[in-house]
């Protein structure tokens, strides 16, 4: 049987989003399109972003990579819709603290919602980049960057 660490890494929600990624599609009328690439393991995604003023109107993604990176992109796409830019940045900071083990407990898991499923990543330092690739790419898109975001 799998170890506890593995169980907490490959949570049901992560396996589900890996198998059936949400918002996994092109977006022809996107305002911003940005690629994210992890040269170490080859994870490669394109993030599509549509804005309504300061609010995220729609997010989708395409690409391929490991379960952690794909599930993270998928879950992210479901939680940032309707949020302001500022709110997205805050979510990313919290998510980043969570997966790097800096989560202090000040932020409740409730606030993190589905993102809390990625808490197990902190036990696997080599996988932090997988979990945060889509987020880094989204942030790049929000900052209207054009060049591919890499995790190296």
């Amino acid at each position, binding site marked *: 049987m799998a*170890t506890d660490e*593995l169980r907490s*890494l*490959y949570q049901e929600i992560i396996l589900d989003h890996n198998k059936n990624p949400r918002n996994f599609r092109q977006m022809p009328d996107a305002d911003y399109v940005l690629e994210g690439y992890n040269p170490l*393991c*080859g994870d490669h995604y394109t993030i599509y972003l549509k804005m309504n003023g300061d609010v995220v109107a729609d997010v989708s993604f395409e690409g391929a990579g*490991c379960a*952690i990176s794909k599930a993270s992109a998928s879950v992210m796409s479901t939680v940032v819709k309707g949020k302001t830019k500022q709110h997205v940045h805050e979510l990313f900071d919290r998510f980043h603290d969570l997966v790097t083990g800096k989560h202090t407990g000040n932020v409740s898991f409730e606030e993190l919602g589905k993102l809390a499923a990625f808490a197990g990543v902190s036990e696997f330092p*080599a996988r932090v980049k997988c979990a945060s690739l889509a987020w880094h790419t989204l942030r790049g898109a929000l900052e209207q960057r054009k060049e591919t975001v890499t995790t190296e």
Partner: protein
Amino acid sequence: MAVTAAIETKQLPKAFDVDAVRSEFPILETPVRGKRLVYLDNAATTQKPRVVIAALRRYYEEENANIHRGVHYLSERATDLYEKTREQIRRFIGAGDAREVVFVRGTTEGINLVAATFGRANVRAGDEVLITAMEHHSNIVPWQMLCEQVGAKLKVAPINDAGELLVDELSNLLNAKTKLLAITHVSNALGTVNPMKDVIAVAHSAGVPVVVDGAQAIPHQRIDVRELDCDFYTFSSHKMYGPTGIGVLYGKLDLLNAMPPYQGGGDMIKSVTFEGTIFNDIPYKFEAGTPNIADGIAFGAAVEYLSSLDWQALSIYEHGLLQYATERVKEIDGVRIIGTAREKAGVLSFVMEGVHPHDIGTILDQEGIAVRTGHHCAQPVMQRFGIPATVRASFGLYNTREEVDALVKSLQKVKEIFN
């Protein structure tokens, strides 16, 4: 009949004693993540036997001095030990002259040295350098850089779906403009063993010299550079049970003599004035600066260790193990083996349907099983097979069938998690 049978039995090689070998490698007894280490990442780097570790320690405790320059006792002793390694390597690879053994940092530097010296002297605008579709990045990029600098063209000999070199196609690519063939002996991503002797003969018949990347071949088979008739052969100590940071470029005497130096500095000169410099003789002409003395000497201990093994028995053992692993892994539902050449050594690369190699690597790691996942510094090979990455189990002389069983069991666990 009975007599023949008796003779046949007698001629059976002695079995390879893997337990005895394992006991020489202290790290194999070190638990990782609370489990017994199953080290299947030997193509990345091998573990080190006691004699190598002891040689390193002894050097710093009892022998440390700079070489080729002091008249004092320790300097002379360190010089002797370092040069003894050169001679051990000469013998190990069947070279005719120890001056043909140039110390470098590893395979990567060996190839870069040839590109920067032989390449810069012989490859001109409009010329061609030929490589193959199964090369490691270190046998692609230096040639790309050279071609870019001088305006030459890089040509690539193709491979088939099994990962075998198409020798006829390679032969067709050789022409009057081809100045060099750079080719791996064994592919690190696929495990393919190239028919080196034939390929070299084909290249030579077209008048093309050959540099062989021997990084993955030398841990698995005895190399005889004179029998191969290669012009250059390069390999890394750390992939053959020696320390990191040292390796060898073998080159034919006349070629090395004709080549310009690599880097400038101490040791590679005979005399220096501000008006000009007289370069040292080979191999020192290519060995500027204080070399990696400690690792060089310990490399000698590794070569001595390897020389003491029964290579016929080892070869049969390693071949049997790879075959066993291939059969067992192939049985797992949804697994596809990447690299199914008839002649293979040491490497089992595969993908599993619906599960990314990176996730497999993490799950195996939790069981103490070390494999490599990714593109293995051979992105063009991945592109050729239309995959982003593979899981690679690579075997060394201390691996066992029990370890293969542990791998298979953990792969079943992967399937369980990702069902």
